[in-house]
């Protein structure tokens, strides 16, 4: 006879996801969709290449506008947050052991912060290349 699965772990319900992480995921989704439309249109249709893509010079010129830099950084933060929260959610769907979950959560946080820091550095570097 197979052993019945427990209804809850002995330590109680796990806190790996809650109202706030879910709200963050659900808010960043539509927000990034709006910014994506702008980002994609500019980068793929308004460039000077025959395909519409932006050349190096196009990108440098584009990043001279501080509003553009701010929007691209906002886009970076929302898309990294949304994608990593979503990826973490997929892992939670498989109910990993607690130790693996803690490691994975920290890995997601480190990757997320690293991606954002790298992206902000890149945006500011590109902006400075035009001056």
């Amino acid at each position: 006879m197979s052993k019945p699965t427990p209804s809850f772990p002995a330590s109680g319900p796990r806190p790996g996801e809650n109202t706030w992480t879910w709200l963050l995921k659900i808010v960043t989704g539509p927000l990034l969709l709006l910014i994506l439309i702008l980002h994609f249109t500019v980068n793929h249709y308004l460039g000077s290449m025959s395909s519409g893509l932006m050349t190096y010079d196009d990108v440098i010129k584009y990043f001279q506008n501080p509003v553009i830099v701010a929007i691209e950084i906002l886009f970076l933060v929302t898309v990294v947050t949304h994608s990593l929260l979503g990826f973490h959610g997929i892992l939670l769907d498989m109910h990993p052991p607690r130790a693996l979950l803690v490691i994975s959560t920290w890995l997601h946080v480190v990757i997320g912060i690293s991606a954002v820091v790298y992206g902000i550095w890149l945006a500011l570097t590109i902006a400075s290349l035009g001056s």
Partner: protein
Amino acid sequence: MDSTRNQPSARRFWSWFIPLRRDIGSWAFALNRATAIGLTIYLFLHLIILGKLAQGPGAYDQFLALTENPLIKFGEWLVVAAAILHGLNGIRVVLTSFGVGVTRQKQLFFGFMAIAVVVILIFTARMY
């Protein structure tokens, strides 16, 4: 008797992507999950490639020449199609999560996918 047979298991994650004979909601879930994984992988590749901009015009424009490669173009098309499908399906999830259209979620899905198909066709026409 295998005590794990027929029981929930992380090893059965493949069943998310093969919703045979299931209702349309399972197909929407499978589509959302597959595009999510694809887009996440693309996101981090994209961030790495953009680092070439900091290396000067030669490095970046050399990479741009690659984008004319048909395989790369197809990859780009896949990414854009995935973003459109995931984005619009995501809007369905947001709406139903706040109680909007819950009893019409199938129609909502078909409607959004129809919009997605139109947008993808327009994008494809402009791309090729």
